[in-house]
């Protein structure tokens, strides 16, 4: 069946079986690789995206549920050439080892910062409670989300014309 998805501000028509989890469509049909397959069980967070501004596990989100809603992936935060504040912060703090979990971390972080621009350490820990990292990059991930909060604060302080680009 054909389903319309709104991903990173663009509308896409995808032809897929209705029970296909959103993750497979993002990765294979829309060529958006950032969200990762980690468990397919909603246990590890590697597949995290934002749906309507909230962190969501795309490996257990059926396509039909995602239809008509605003989906944001890491690709919607910026590009390698023009990274957004969360991406800049992860690069600046060198917050990856293998990096496989990092896209999910960034999306959980993005959803947190959207609603809580100045999170405490405990807020960050709570927002990342469903995200697993095996390399032990946790300290740097938390530091990057704090740094992203600062960068977004600086961006918000800029004249309005420049600050429209949000991290999600």
């Amino acid at each position, binding site marked *: 069946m054909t389903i319309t998805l709104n991903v990173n501000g663009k509308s896409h028509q995808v032809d897929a079986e209705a029970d296909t989890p959103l993750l497979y469509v993002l990765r294979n049909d829309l060529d958006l*690789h*950032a969200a990762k397959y980690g468990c397919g069980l909603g*246990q590890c967070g590697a597949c995290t995206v934002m749906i309507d501004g909230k962190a969501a596990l795309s490996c257990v989100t059926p396509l039909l549920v995602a239809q008509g809603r605003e989906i944001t992936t890491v690709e919607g*935060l910026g590009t390698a050439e023009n990274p957004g504040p969360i991406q800049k912060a992860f*690069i600046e703090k060198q917050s990856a080892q293998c*990096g496989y979990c990092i896209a999910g971390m960034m999306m959980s972080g993005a959803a947190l910062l959207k609603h809580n621009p100045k999170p405490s350490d405990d807020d960050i*820990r709570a927002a990342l409670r469903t995200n697993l990292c*095996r390399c032990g990059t946790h300290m740097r991930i938390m530091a990057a989300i704090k740094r992203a909060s600062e960068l977004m604060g600086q961006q918000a302080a800029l004249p309005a014309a420049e600050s429209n680009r949000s991290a999600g």
Partner: protein
Amino acid sequence: MDTFDKPDNTDIENSASEHSGPELTRRGLLMGTGALVVSFSTANAFAQTPAPAPAAPAAAPAKPPALPGSLDTDRYLDSWIRIDAQSKITVFTGKAELGQGIRTPLMQVAAEELYVDPKDIELITADTGRTPDEGFTAGSQSMQNSGTAIRNAAAQVRDLLIAQAATQWNLPADQLKVEKKRVIAPDGRSMGYGEVVVGQFLHVEAQPKSKLKTPDQFSVIGRDVQRVDIPGKVTGGVAYIQDLKMDGMVHARVVRPPSYSATLKNLDDTAIRKMPGVIEVVRDGNFLAVVTEKEYQAVKAMHALQLAAQWDEPAKLLDNANLSAELIGLETEVGTVAEAGTPAFPNGPTYEATFSRPYIMHGSIGPSCGIAVMKADGSLDVWSHTQGVFPDRDAIAQMLALPKPKVRVIHMEGSGCYGHNGADDAAADAALIATKVPGRPVRVQWMREQEHTWEPFGPGMVTKIKASVGADGMIDNWTYDLWSNSHGTRPGDAGSLLAGRHKSNPTPLKLPKININPNGNGDRNAIPLYAIPNQKILWHYVNQMPIRVSALRGLGAQPNVFSIESTMDELAMAAKTDPVEFRLKHMKDKRGYDVIKLAAEKFGWGKGTPARDHGVGFAFARYKNHAAYLAIAVELKVEPDTGRVRVIRCVSAIDSGQAVNPDGIRNQTEGGILQSLSWTLYEAVQFDKTRITSADWSSYPILRFASVPDTVEVHIIDRPGTPFLGTGEAAQGPTSAAIANAIRNATGKRITDLPLSRERVKTAIGA
């Protein structure tokens, strides 16, 4: 490093990395008919004659001189460095990016000696079709082996470029300089590197000595160069094998037997073949797989195939509740790891204990993936996140009865592996399936439960220590017995691959033999680095492997250091000495002494008393007793009601020799500390007599953000001009022991069985 690794190169490297060596001077540089003969004069008399002299026919071939790092096995400079006519520099390494960030420091060492920016270098990693064979990317040896080779090759290439330009300009080489990929004469004339390099110019054998830059000349080594792989990884680039797409690619899922020894009894796959998108149902002995056009179709077909397959399952696993006795009961032979003096325990304070570690999972966040295509000419290309493209190639070729040159294995990064996980098996799965659908690239993605239940685990181990302290407060006697499988069942042989064992005409796993060598295996770090006059260390070898095992970060070092360093604290108490002071008194290695001092100082060891229910603990090890030194102090809190342990802060000091990328060392060490914390507090593979039952993250819990410490500090002692010692595995053992010692400090109870779980702590404190 495990038993299948290449011999350790530390000694070679020591001699090759001297910076005070003689100047490499040009003596003859002859351009002939397409052949180039290069010779150097060095004070160490490694000079060759300018013209090649044929060896006397009767003379035995002289053993070639040892070359630095992996140059010793791939001896031509152009195996490592090539420069094209446009001065584009390509560096080749047989090592692989596993998430440890190795690409960046390898580019740094090459850039340093070539006087270029790391960005000017393209790095090609492990590929049987293109790069040197450097065995496995394992044992924290990439900088030692590959870094040393590349650095020396780069220095020699640079000097060849200078020598060649000097010949053309008829100028003394020492008047020339290099800058921005150009050789420059004092009068301003210059030639690009690419203009100097013609034809086979770099196809020359490397020399034993290189004119390496001295630390005061460094502009790239020792700098926190940002990792080259991170921008792609945080912006959704094609960063992992899981992200690769190829024209005509099909998706496959394997259906593994429900347990190690299960055999297929019955299967009717008629309905599965009719499912949407199904191209093929592969049945080859006990090997089952589905191949479909779209990925999720493969998942659904896999589930249907799982339901359709009926298996015979024998109950052959160990009794996990009684693991230590089970392992000891499986002992097949005893090997002596070390022996000195005559340990005897007449009187005086003696400590005796049995320690254990359960089977531990690598637990990669991304399940393994492999891609393979069988081409029209009968050759097979395989993409894999294996740690060893060459051994994996050999194993796959054997499994498929193909000549090795017909199989090419190309490394592509996967999720962090921390040792031998499912990577090689997924590559073999893809290779076997590709032979059934020739012409189409086959992508096999393992499911979470497959990675959890089929990866080779870090072996369970048991250790027994008896040790005593003399009247002088010094350890006088020490006996140590350890029970362990080999920690190495890596490829090389088809029997190491699940597909090789499951297909028809299977190749059984070759059980490794006991192998005691300086790198250690199950016995890695079994010898305390402390001065102990009487000691005896034995490896009670367990030949059978009822649970699938192989190399996990650190091999035996984690359980051995956990045991040794727990005992050191008990002996310090018996000697009524502060545990840090006690270690220092027994440490004769200056660099070991220095990291212990620094970690203690930065932690504020001995200053103040821990708060109520808090404890502090300390531990140290030199990885493999010849690699990186690491000491760590931790502070933690034990919740008396629940037994829950929360590590609050960790302060470590590490000496990895010459630090190439300090932030890379910090990143790896922070990761090692947190991963070891997770192993130590939470992890144990669960199984019943038939099946592995830790099949997902709820049945195999690991560290979560709620339990991450407040701070983790890594202090580096840089040793400019000394050999690279590697970093990746140094923290695994000391972290475990420091946590155990801190729990002892907080509660007064010594827990000797890993993990130091909430239940065990609660039981120990009688809460």
